[in-house]
């Protein structure tokens, strides 16, 4: 006869509550019954952030698709691509503001045409014209590359970005924080230590960052876990990380992905995605409050399920996500605030619109359906 028999050892659960989950604990939780892991993560989520589930009305803006990088997982880079002018960027920010966006996420490839002066001008122009818009921009990789072009230190570059008004640096280009993995998938990118140093320096310069992990390619399970522990260590030291976004690798149209597909390996499965969200919540408990389930990678339905497995944020409305689309993402490029609220209420939670720094936005979107009808195309 069916009976619930908990199998997770008491001390593992105790350490999780104290924010002292070890690598062995994490491995044990992943080997156990997935529902026990999800329940633990869900309880820790409730303890930390309660029943509120947040999302941000934002827009991705891609400065350029040109890139001197050689990342084998990328399906976005072009040899002869575009570079947006300042005016074009401002036009996109203007469109975003009209649609109610409180954040613009500005990123792109790294290329010799774009040095620190260009980035500084972009940030300054956006902030001058739209002082209330949260500017969440650039990756540690872009800052390192451009600082080098402009012959300045990363610290100097970050301090100038801060002065220009950068609110938050994106924690992308983290991929998997293991030099073994980075040599295979992104040999031209900054190494693990450089990524850590850049993020830490940003925090010390007063710039928040988020953090990411792109998993499901050549890394081992242990390397995934080590990555999350690195994030915890950074946060212990600086407290500057707003959230972790686990991002499942999409294996289409890139050399790494094609190699995987040819050897009979596909995208991470739904179970695996939920397990990583849950274990991230457990490992980061008491340190990083917010775990994001990204609908672009997971699909809306699974992202909503992730809210029961440790996640407390659904990310952004986005409006355009050229990078996931290039890699075979088929979940659309825009979710309306009304649909976010539907998903969140369907999970029995309370929706909250936030800005980049998880500050509550006082605005009622519940009766405002499809503010961007032109972008709500499906299929």
């Amino acid at each position: 006869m069916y009976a619930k028999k908990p199998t997770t050892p008491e001390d593992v659960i105790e350490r999780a509550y104290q924010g002292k989950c070890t690598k062995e604990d994490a491995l044990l939780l992943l080997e156990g019954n997935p529902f026990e892991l999800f329940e633990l993560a869900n309880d820790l989520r409730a303890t930390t952030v309660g029943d509120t589930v947040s999302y941000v009305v934002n827009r991705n803006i891609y400065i350029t698709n040109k890139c001197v990088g050689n990342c084998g997982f990328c399906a976005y880079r072009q040899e002869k691509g575009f570079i947006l002018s300042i005016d074009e960027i401002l036009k996109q920010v203007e469109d975003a503001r009209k649609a109610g966006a409180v954040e613009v996420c500005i990123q792109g490839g790294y290329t010799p045409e774009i040095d620190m002066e260009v980035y500084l001008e972009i940030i300054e122009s956006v902030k001058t014209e739209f002082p209330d818009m949260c500017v969440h921009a650039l990756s540690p990789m872009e800052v390192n590359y451009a600082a080098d072009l402009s012959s300045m230190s990363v610290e100097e570059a970050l301090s100038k970005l801060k002065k220009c008004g950068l609110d938050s640096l994106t924690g992308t280009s983290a991929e998997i924080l293991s030099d073994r993995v980075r040599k295979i998938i992104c040999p031209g990118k900054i190494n693990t230590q450089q990524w850590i140093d850049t993020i830490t320096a940003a925090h010390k310069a007063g710039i928040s960052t988020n953090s990411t992990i792109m998993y499901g390619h050549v890394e081992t399970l242990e390397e995934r876990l080590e990555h999350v522990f690195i994030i915890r260590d950074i946060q212990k030291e600086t407290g500057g990380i707003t959230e972790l976004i686990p991002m499942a690798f999409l294996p289409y149209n890139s050399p790494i992905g094609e190699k995987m597909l040819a050897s009979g390996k596909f995208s991470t499965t739904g179970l695996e995605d939920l397990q990583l969200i849950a274990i991230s919540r457990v490992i980061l408990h008491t340190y990083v409050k917010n775990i994001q389930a990204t609908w672009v990678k997971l699909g809306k339905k699974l992202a909503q399920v992730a809210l029961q497995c440790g996640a407390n944020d659904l990310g952004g409305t986005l409006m355009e996500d050229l990078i996931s689309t290039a890699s075979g993402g088929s979940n659309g490029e825009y979710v309306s605030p009304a649909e976010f609220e539907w998903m969140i209420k369907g999970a029995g939670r309370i929706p909250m619109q936030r800005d980049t720094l998880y500050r509550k936005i006082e605005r009622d979107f519940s009766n405002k359906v499809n503010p961007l009808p032109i972008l709500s195309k499906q299929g």
Partner: protein
Amino acid sequence: MNTEIPEDLIERAYKGKTTKEDGLLLMEVSPFELFRFADELRNLATGDTVTYVVNRNINFTSQCLGTCGFCAFRTNKGKVLSLEEILGKVREAAQANATEVCIQGGLLPNVGLDFYLGVTEAIKAEFPEMHIHSFSPMEVYHAAHVSEIPVKEALIKLKRSGLDTMPGTAAEILSDRVREIICPSKLKTSEWIDVVSQAHSVGIPTTATIMYGHIETLEERIDHILIIREIQKETGGITEFVPLPFMPYNNPIGEKMIKEGKYATPGIEDLKNYAISRILLHGYVDNIQASWVKLGKKLAQFALHCGANDLGGTLMEESISRSAGASNGEVISVDELEWMIYGAGRVPKERTTLYSGVHELTSGNSNRITGCGASE
């Protein structure tokens, strides 16, 4: 929210005697409790094997006399595939090692049973081994009416012409209140039950479906599942139950929902529906299918932990969900299905339409790591 499932409910579930009240109560228990219990019953019913079928959908026309408000596929002047074109598609399916073709289409004016018999006869003449899983209860009902013969006679003729099984589509929600709103010109609840039961009686097994997440109440969903259980008690002719979430794009019912701030069922609701189906049908219908076309591959895989034991077909083409906003693709490879199944810690097996003659397929993936499985 109750965190525990009451003991007496669990006992009734094991005996296949859950009630409507039990079903409604299960909607309220914590989802993980529900999933774990459904997973336990799945394990009892079908063990660790997860099945799929290599098949092809063939939609021979989008033209339809119907007026269903949930449909985004229907057209007034759509092309009708010729017999030769249908055979061409079956030929491609045979070359791709499909064991089943699933042929369905809209309701054409003045097209009676002879058309349908012609299709099955032609396919069986050229591909005697191909399993023909075709024609919804609505199509059979329509064809019988146009030909002015009783449904049972139509079914007997279809059986003789080579029809192996029928999809249990056109069920939508088996409630006349709901049908009046979403598909007023379709056959009524009792007529659907009649067509399906008579098909079983002449030796044509069927699947059963539910299309949920539009205007129906939770109670109507439960009633639907219990109707399926009653049919199965009587005939034993149902091979599997396939819950299908409604896709609210490009159709009048969906557009009205979206205007009111209602969207596709969220993932948790889909999973609860699978779990409750498993529990209510325990002892009667062993196979619960998770449809990757509707759920997406990732959620369909997770549904294997919530009561489902089958991932459906490779399909090769799929037009109906796609026109209603599904973006999960039209084809999935055997390799990818097996990848998903191994990732759930289960054992993949290719099956036939009838879930018999299931054989292990050697796609070379049998040494896959299981569990949380980071790729090496």
